[in-house]
């Protein structure tokens, strides 16, 4: 398989140690846990999404492993402003703070708490199972643009994470770009559910949730491909990446880097495992393959 040259990596204004970033909400709830993912090879980490007030999340079951993926409806549990001290031991590290809110002003308020601490921000405009947050506003281009403008005004790298649960992801990506996003992250989870046959009821406490993991890789790949056609800022591919080959495939579709979440379930050192296979001294520069499948 083709390998990459280990070079300096910078995506949307954030300097990373490699192309493999921990995705939001997976083992990203504490500073110690984020540090552990760094030690285990993540080139950068995104925190759990932080909102304007503390939230406990949905009643359980919140997450169920399936054959080929995970289904979850966590409900955005987060300690809000009390997350600030969690990042004390990570100053100077490539830590991107994920933010959610119900209005542009709420996004701006949360961003202000982390202004001097975060290497960048990621706007969660894409959580499929939290009323009034995430995808509820992320499918509305005007809202996407307004929220992005509010956070981009801090002058820090601003990534915008998109939902695949829309008709035309390209138009949402363009709205984020117009609002000042420095990169796009695609995708968040795909709307889904499971039912317990024996109990005749949905198995998640929230009834509905989102799928992640290998099951959604082809969906994520298509979204990245579409965004590469529609937008001109860098794209970070996310959704089902669990191997060096997946990483290369995402890059060929147009991703400048990838985020990895669910694959930690099978291997908590998945970043190191992938990096060992992805890079070699006689590899090609990443720029040579990013978007090459569009030729």
């Amino acid at each position: 398989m083709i390998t990459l040259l280990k070079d300096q990596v910078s995506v949307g204004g954030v300097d990373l140690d490699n192309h493999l970033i921990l995705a939001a909400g997976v083992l990203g709830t504490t500073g110690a846990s984020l540090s552990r993912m760094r030690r285990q090879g993540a080139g950068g980490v995104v925190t759990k999404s932080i909102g304007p007030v503390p939230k406990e999340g949905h009643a359980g079951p919140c997450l169920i492993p399936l054959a080929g993926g995970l289904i979850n409806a966590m409900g955005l549990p987060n300690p809000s402003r009390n997350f600030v001290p969690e990042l004390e031991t990570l100053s100077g590290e490539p830590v991107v703070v994920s933010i959610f809110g119900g209005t542009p002003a709420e996004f701006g308020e949360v961003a202000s708490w982390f202004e001097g601490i975060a290497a960048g921000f990621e706007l969660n405009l894409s959580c499929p199972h939290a009323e009034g947050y995430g995808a509820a506003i992320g499918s509305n281009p005007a809202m996407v643009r307004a929220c992005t403008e509010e956070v981009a005004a801090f002058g820090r790298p601003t990534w915008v994470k998109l939902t695949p649960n829309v008709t035309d992801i390209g138009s949402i990506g363009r709205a984020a770009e117009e609002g000042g996003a420095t990169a796009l992250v695609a995708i968040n989870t795909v709307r889904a559910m499971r039912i317990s046959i024996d109990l005749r009821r949905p198995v998640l406490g929230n009834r509905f949730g989102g799928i992640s993991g290998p099951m959604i890789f082809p969906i994520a790949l298509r979204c990245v491909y579409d965004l590469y056609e529609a937008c001109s800022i860098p794209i970070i591919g996310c959704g089902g990446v669990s191997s060096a080959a997946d990483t290369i495939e995402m890059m060929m579709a147009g991703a400048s880097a990838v985020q990895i979440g669910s694959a930690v379930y099978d291997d908590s050192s998945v970043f190191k495992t992938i990096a060992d296979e992805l890079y070699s001294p006689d590899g090609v520069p990443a720029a040579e393959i990013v978007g090459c499948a569009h030729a």
Partner: protein
Amino acid sequence: MRDGMPVVVTVREVIDETPTVKTLRFDSEFAIRPGHFCMVWVPGIDEVPMGFSSPGSITVQKVGEATAALTSLTPGDRIGIRGPFGNGFTPNGRVLAIAGGVGVVPLYPLAVNGSVDTFILGARTGTELVFARELSDLTDLKIATDDGTAGYHGFVTGVMDSEIDLLSYDTICVCGPEMMMKGILDRLSDAGIADRGQFSLHRYMKCGVGVCGSCTIDPEGLCVCRDGPVFTGDQIINSEFGTYARDASGQRKRV
């Protein structure tokens, strides 16, 4: 990734262990090792972590909404089980087990399989002792109650200090309230044998499978659900253990 949908079990029998503790015996069994836990789905309410008291049962104390619902179930009711999860105890040589309250639950299968030589069982009061009769047949049982209504008048650590030659044990398995476990860890550490202690920790859990991060402990970021719930004393001696934990929103609270 394997399919981990909850296995629906029917409650066959409900046994009153104490006025606040009940054992729910299921119609099916799970392949457990002592110290394993499961995520128990109480339909319409929540899903909570719970130790197995045997391959086909859990033993529950009423402390919150989900456990209140569990302790009011009757034969024929159905719940969902995900698991077994976690690492379990790995005892060797001469084994001392120390339990406080319902902390006895994950240690009980260890006694049943013949691994425990001496068992110190503590409770607030005599009527709250769980599995005392069974344990006296299986082990050299020593009892402590806070109010002195049974056995030693005081904490399990009092029995340790007065009746136990700690160094004569190769493994010390512990489960109970965190401050009780901290008191035991301090004693093992003073004796220079923190590494012989195996402590079963409790932390708030959402996924049970090492993905969500809600159960991680500082400063190493270990997941109690996946890397634990059993940790050796030297793994946790310089950690948040005994000081703070996090709640459902991830905010720190004192233990």
